[in-house]
């Protein structure tokens, strides 16, 4: 195993250009993805694994398939890049949109089928990537707005466990909310 003693002498700038540390992530279906360590550390879960010194060769992610993992990596790369380039964005309270240049990219990123969206949520949750979790949860929340309870049940495959009488009573409590 190559020792890293030479990195002590290397200056920061050179280190940045030549010795960017990489880490390998392995999906549940056995595919390996090599990424910059800094990108991988967008995930708090991976960050802790690396900091605890448990990342030797590969970090196995048994809860994330390769399809989803590649998207997650794409998200992390894009957001890491943007964070490095610009000042933190400031939300203007008097305007409708934020001044975050990634908003458009994020909106496109979540234009996926429902199953993929849910898988991204589960992955963001498991990998503890706040930005991705916020984005995906907000997308689903927006999907839910204005839907009737029956439409919600159909979209998310939820079983109605109320009896008709029970359901009528719950509805009556907040009748105005159904108008």
């Amino acid at each position, binding site marked *: 195993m190559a020792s890293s003693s030479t990195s002590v002498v290397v200056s920061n700038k050179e280190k940045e250009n030549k010795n960017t540390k990489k880490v390998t992530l392995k999906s549940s279906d056995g595919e390996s993805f090599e990424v910059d360590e800094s990108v991988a550390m967008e995930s708090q879960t991976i960050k802790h694994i690396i900091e605890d010194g448990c990342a030797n060769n590969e970090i196995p992610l048994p809860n994330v398939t390769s399809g989803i993992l590649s998207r997650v990596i794409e998200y992390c790369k894009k957001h890491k890049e943007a964070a490095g380039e610009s000042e933190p964005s400031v939300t203007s*309270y*008097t305007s409708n949109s934020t001044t975050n240049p990634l908003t458009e990219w994020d909106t496109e990123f979540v234009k996926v089928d429902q199953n993929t969206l849910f898988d991204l949520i589960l992955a963001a*949750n498991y990998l503890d990537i706040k930005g991705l979790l916020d984005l995906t949860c907000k997308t689903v929340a927006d999907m839910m707005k204005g839907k009737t309870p029956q439409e919600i049940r159909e979209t998310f495959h939820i079983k109605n466990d109320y009896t008709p009488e029970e*359901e009528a009573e719950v509805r009556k409590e907040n009748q105005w909310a159904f108008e």
Partner: protein
Amino acid sequence: MFETGSKPIRKRSDAWYEVESAEDILADILSRVPIKSLLAFKSVSKQWRRLIESSTFIKLQLRWSLEKPNYLIYPYMDGLVNLYQTKGNGEIIEKITLFGCEDIYALSLLCSCNGLLCFINYPFVPDSNRELVYLIDFDIRICNPATHEVYLLPKGSPSEKKISIGVAFGPKPWEYKVFRFFHPKYDSDDIKCEVYSSITGSWRGIGDVQYCPIGILYCPLGSNHVYVNGKIYWFLPEEGDIITPGSILSVDIEENFKVISLPDEVTAHAFLVDLEGFLSLVAVYDDDQVVDVWILHDSNESNWEKKCSDYVPFSCVDSINFVAARKTEIFFITSDQYLIYNLDNGTWTELDFEDDFESNLPVVLPYTESLLPCEY
């Protein structure tokens, strides 16, 4: 994906992880949904109802809500209670009509916190044959416009002279206290205070107090106090002058009173607001057409910082009716205009609501939706 009792879409080795995780994720998603939809979603399934009504969820929803506060305008004090929620750009995002308030005469909006509003009104005395009824006591209502809940507090102790109140929220998210200053005898200067707690549902006397805040009728439409970061702050009148503030009275949730001196002399056009979690004094000087904004950094000492001083774009002829603050903005309502002053860049923006509603004694307060109950 959200099912915890039935078949999951994907198999996992650790079923309990999936169950816990799925409910956390569902909570995360639902906490970003508008409350009107959430109330309808209670009928989706029993699990959803349990989740939406749980205290952890209510806290989570409030946390997101507090990150994006809006303004609530109550423009017309007569008959139906219509509230208009707006962002600071003049766009009305929601009109809320409070039911159960139609027969109440002249409801006045006092304060807003964590999605709860406090309204007061002097009850109409129907068989009074005099034109002027000496108004002393008023009804106090706490309501949540997002859930349409309205709760009338039980009556306080009898008072011979005008009463004053202040509402404190906390320490728990659904605990609030109302402090009520009253005068047990007409011809003496005795002032007593009693406190209503939402937890006990009743008033408890805390005895004689030294100070009584400036009465509600002498303050612009009744907002004579502000609740900031664990304390209520009221103006105390100057010696011999019942309208002009001379100092500030504060009380914390443990019922400890303190008097804080003002940083400067002020006119009757002075207001107390919450600026990013600090008590702020907004003092308008009509003669110079200037507004000074002060921040109190340490509520234990009268340690004020002058945040800024700027010209006001309205003349002294326009009286200021109401002032509210949200993040780094101050919303002014004058007899003619709705104006927002941005403290960061010192700019004034006029908002136009002519097409949206008629105004008659308008009031504005910072507001966010929440699921907090009014009655416990």
